[in-house]
C-alpha cells in the first residue's frame, strides 16, 4: 500500500483537528506542561513571548533548538515553532527537528522583505498571519495549511485582531455573493490568487482553518474572536504574563469552547487576577507595528 506524507489533506487535516481549541505560547517545559494540563490543543515553543520580544527590541530570530526540544520532550500535544518570514533555513531546521507546525511569523524580524517561503516544498505544515483576504489567499497559494489573524502581537489589545477577522469575514462574504465574472477583477484589486477565490466562492469559507491571534488577553477576548468566526485561538503573551497562568489558561480554554455561554464566561472571569497590562495601539509607532510585516 502506498504511503504518502506531506499531502494537502494531511497538512490541512492536522489544523482541522485543532479547531475549537487554544494554542499557547510557552518558553520552557514547565509552561508547556501548564498549557497541556489546562487543555491547550498545541503549544508554540518560543525563546520569548511577543511582549518580551517587543520590549527587548533588536532582531528576533527562531528560538534556540534546545528550548524547542525541551518543550517537545515535555508534552504529548503538538509543538509549533516560529521561523522568520522567508527564512528557508530556519524553516528547514525546525522541520528537521520534527516540529509539528511552523509559524512563518511577523512576530520575528523578517529575513526576506520581498518573498515568503514556498511552503508547498515542505512536509511540515505552516500557519501564516493575515489581515485581509489578499494576504490570506496569497499565503494559501504558497502552501500555508492554516491562517491566523495577525492582530497586533504582544499588546494584549484585541482591537487589531477584531479588525482583521471582521475584514476577512466580510471579504469572504463579498466573494461568496459575487458572480464568477466579477472575481477576476476582485482578484486584481485585492492581490488574491484567482483560483483560491473561486474555491472560497464554492465552499463559503477559506480552504484552510482560520484562527485568531495577536492581542487575546482575557477569556472574553477569546470568546469574542470565536463569535466573530474564528476556528480557534492563539494566545501569546496573555497567559504567562498574567498573575495566575494556570487559572488564566484554563479559563481561556473553557471560554473558547463555550463562547456563547455568557454566565459561564462571567464565572470563569472572576478573581482571575490582573491580565497583562496591554498597550494602546495608537501609541505604537509605525515601525513597531508587527502587523505591517509580510507581503
Amino acid at each position: 500500500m502506498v504511503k504518502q506524507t506531506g499531502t494537502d489533506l494531511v497538512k490541512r487535516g492536522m489544523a482541522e483537528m485543532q479547531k475549537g481549541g487554544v494554542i499557547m505560547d510557552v518558553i520552557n517545559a514547565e509552561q508547556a506542561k501548564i498549557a497541556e494540563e489546562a487543555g491547550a490543543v498545541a503549544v508554540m515553543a518560543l525563546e520569548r513571548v511577543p511582549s518580551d520580544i517587543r520590549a527587548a527590541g533588536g532582531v528576533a530570530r527562531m528560538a534556540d533548538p534546545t528550548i524547542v526540544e525541551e518543550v517537545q520532550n515535555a508534552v504529548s500535544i503538538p509543538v509549533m515553532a516560529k521561523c522568520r518570514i522567508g527564512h528557508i533555513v530556519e524553516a528547514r531546521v525546525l522541520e528537521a527537528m520534527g516540529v509539528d507546525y511552523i509559524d512563518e511569523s511577523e512576530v520575528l524580524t523578517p529575513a526576506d522583505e520581498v518573498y515568503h517561503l514556498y511552503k508547498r516544498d515542505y512536509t511540515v505544515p505552516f500557519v501564516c498571519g493575515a489581515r485581509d483576504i489578499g494576504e490570506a489567499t496569497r499565503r494559501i497559494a504558497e502552501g500555508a495549511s492554516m491562517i491566523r489573524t495577525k492582530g497586533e502581537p504582544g499588546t494584549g489589545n484585541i482591537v487589531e485582531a477584531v479588525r482583521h477577522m471582521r475584514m476577512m469575514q466580510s471579504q469572504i462574504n463579498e466573494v461568496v455573493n459575487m458572480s464568477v465574472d466579477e472575481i477576476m477583477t476582485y482578484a486584481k484589486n485585492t492581490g488574491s490568487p484567482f483560483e483560491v477565490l473561486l474555491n472560497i466562492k464554492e465552499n463559503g469559507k477559506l480552504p484552510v482553518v482560520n484562527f485568531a491571534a495577536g492581542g487575546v488577553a482575557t477569556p472574553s477576548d477569546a470568546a469574542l474572536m470565536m463569535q466573530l468566526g474564528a476556528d480557534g485561538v492563539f494566545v501569546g503573551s496573555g497567559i504567562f504574563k498574567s498573575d495566575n497562568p494556570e487559572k488564566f489558561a484554563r479559563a481561556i480554554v473553557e471560554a473558547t469552547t463555550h463562547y456563547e455561554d455568557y454566565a459561564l464566561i462571567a464565572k470563569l472571569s472572576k478573581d482571575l487576577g490582573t491580565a497583562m497590562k496591554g498597550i494602546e495601539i495608537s501609541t505604537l509607532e509605525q515601525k513597531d507595528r508587527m502587523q505591517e510585516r509580510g507581503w
Partner: protein
Amino acid sequence: MINIGVLALQGAVREHVKALEANDVNIVIVKKVDQLQELDGLVFPGGESTTMRRLINNYGFYEPLKEFAKRGKPIFGTCAGAILMANEIVGQADPHIAVMDMKVERNAFGRQRESFETTLNVKGIGDDVPGVFIRAPIIQAVGEAVDVLAEFEGEIVAAQQGPFLACSYHPELTDDNRMHQYFVDMVRHAVSANLA
C-alpha cells in the same frame, strides 16, 4: 428518524456532521450533557484527546458518557475519539471513557511530518477505503470480544466491539462516507433491536 450526536467539545466536528448528513439521520451537535438523552448514537471526533478529556471532566460528561455506553448505545471514535474509547493507553495510568477492550498507543507513527495518507482494506466495507493518519494512534492489542476491521503495516487501525467502532484514521476528512454509513447501520440495528 434516528438521532446521532457529535461530541463538540473540541476537534473536527463539522467534518463528521458533513459525513453523516448523507445518511438521512438527525444530527445533534453535543455541547451539553442533557443532549445525550435524545441520542441513538454518538461520534467522538478527532482532535486532541487530552483537551477533550479535560473538557469532558469540566462539563460533567464523564459519568453520563460511561452510562451512555453501558446502555449499549453505539459510539464511533476516530483518532483522538478512539483513544477516548480504549480501556488502556500506553504510558498513561488511567484510560478515558474506556468502553472497548483494547490498548492504544498515542502518536504511534511519530510526529506530524510522519503523518500520511494511504488506502486500507476494511472488513465489511471495502479494500479501497482512504486512510488519513494524522499524528495517529495504533491499536496495539485487542481482547477476545473485539473484531479487528483493518490493519496497516501489521498494526491494527480499526476495530469493533459490539456497538462500539474505533479507527485511528480520519474518514471524516475524505469524501468517502462508507465508514459513517457503516456506523449509521450499526445505530439503526441497535435501535430496532431495542424496539424488538
